[in-house]
């Protein structure tokens, strides 16, 4: 409930009206879980953009995977991250007794949630894509029937770059691609395929 109110009154007006999001390929966005959304990551805004392009009625189902060491660093921040944003905390360097790092994500997918994953791992250099980690491939292998939807976000790193506190409004583009499924391949091949599909969505914005 709190999450819905926070998104209806704060995040959505900020993202959709003050900044503005231009969605390309809206029909390719799955409205029912379980599914995995994979996007490039440059800004805290990325999560907010991806969560705002889903209808408000679905917001409780949409859960971003986020680094536990950053988003759970103190108890107030942890409460906010878990109850208001609804993140699935991911330990970047898990210890043995904490179990499999992707356990929380697996549980959410079994629960039919829409899970947002940033395969680059962290926000990196503004408006540049880093190398992809193989986490999504592990998930896709475990759930071969779940679609992995690639989305390229453009301009969020300009509106709110890493390390800057001042938000300056610009229209942000979200380019949605065709869903991918895990087939008979290895994790590395799947990750490459995913990376290529997001790079392809990126090309539109850098043609001369």
């Amino acid at each position, binding site marked *: 409930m709190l999450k819905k109110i926070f998104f209806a009154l704060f995040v959505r007006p900020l993202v959709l009206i003050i*900044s*503005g999001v*231009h969605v390309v390929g809206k029909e390719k966005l799955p409205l029912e879980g379980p599914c995995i959304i994979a996007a490039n990551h440059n800004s805290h805004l990325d999560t907010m953009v991806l969560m705002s392009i889903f209808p408000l009625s679905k917001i409780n189902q949409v859960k971003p995977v986020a680094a536990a060491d950053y988003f759970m660093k103190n108890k107030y921040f942890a409460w906010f991250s878990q109850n208001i944003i609804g993140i699935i905390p991911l330990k970047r360097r898990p210890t043995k007794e904490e179990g499999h790092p992707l356990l929380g994500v697996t549980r959410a997918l079994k629960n039919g949630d829409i899970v947002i994953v940033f395969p680059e791992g962290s926000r990196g250099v*503004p408006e540049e894509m880093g190398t992809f980690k193989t986490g999504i491939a592990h998930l896709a292998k475990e759930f071969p029937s779940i679609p992995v939807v690639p989305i390229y976000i453009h*301009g969020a790193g*300009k509106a709110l*770059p890493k390390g*800057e506190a*001042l938000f*300056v*409004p*610009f*229209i942000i583009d979200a380019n949605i691609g065709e869903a991918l499924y895990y087939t008979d391949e290895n994790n590395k091949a799947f990750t490459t395929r995913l990376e290529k599909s997001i790079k392809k969505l990126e090309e539109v914005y850098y*043609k*001369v």
Partner: protein
Amino acid sequence: MVSVEAGIVLGFILVALVVATILIYVKFPTQELKDRMNSWWVIIGFFTVGAMLHTTTAMFFFGFLSYLALKEYFTLIPSRQTDRRVMFYAYLSIIPQYYFAGIGWYGMFIIWIPVFLFLLLPFKQVLIGETKGFLENTSRVQWGLMMFVFGLSHLAYMITLKPVEGHSVGGTELVLYLVLLTELNDILQYLWGKSIGKRKIVPKVSPNKTVEGFVGAFVSISILAVLFSFLTPFTWLQALVAGMIISGGGFVGDVVISMVKRDIGVKDSGNMLPGHGGILDRVDSLIYTTPLFFHYVYYLYY
């Protein structure tokens, strides 16, 4: 409240909308025309509620319009990471500009952007300290402010104008007159061009614009300007000249914004208005007609 004169014209627009919608859905049901028609309903609905009913609401309405146009422009132009802060102040300058318009402080309204922002924004760049690309960014940002904030805000100032002695119509009616004729000019240029257009007028910038379209709209708008002059204190001759200013200015505004889009390499400035493109694609001609028409009226009557 809406005056009788404005009420008549808004009623006329409503009838025209209904007729055009039926015509499009029955005779030319292409998706593009339908989208464009539906967007017209939205634009006219917002304009009527936002600008026609109350002067204070109108300040917020036009201020927000400036903001949307400026944001589209800032998104399109190339910029460096350090320009974000300069652009932030450019956005903020919208608030005082519309405040000065709202309280009718003419002196401040007319110099806030061309003098104060023009002199001080470069200093903000000095404080940031990125020397490379200074001139490019200063020009781009100032140009955007002049077009989308200074230019458009004349609509807001115009709406605060009181009726001239001996006339019942004031600023609201002048704005309605100007916006109606500017938008009709766009539509008529398109329709005249579609039906008899042959010779391209600016082929490199806007290949769809024709001499026939321009002349057809110029003559039609001049006549319409006289017909609708009950919204203004104009004599018929003054109205005729107003029509010429609006038609000519609207054409120039349209092709200047096309020039910007050509330079950047996009077709539409955005997608807020399906069938039209972005806000810039719709307000392009208004940016030129508004200050030109405002200063014409201001010179004649205020």
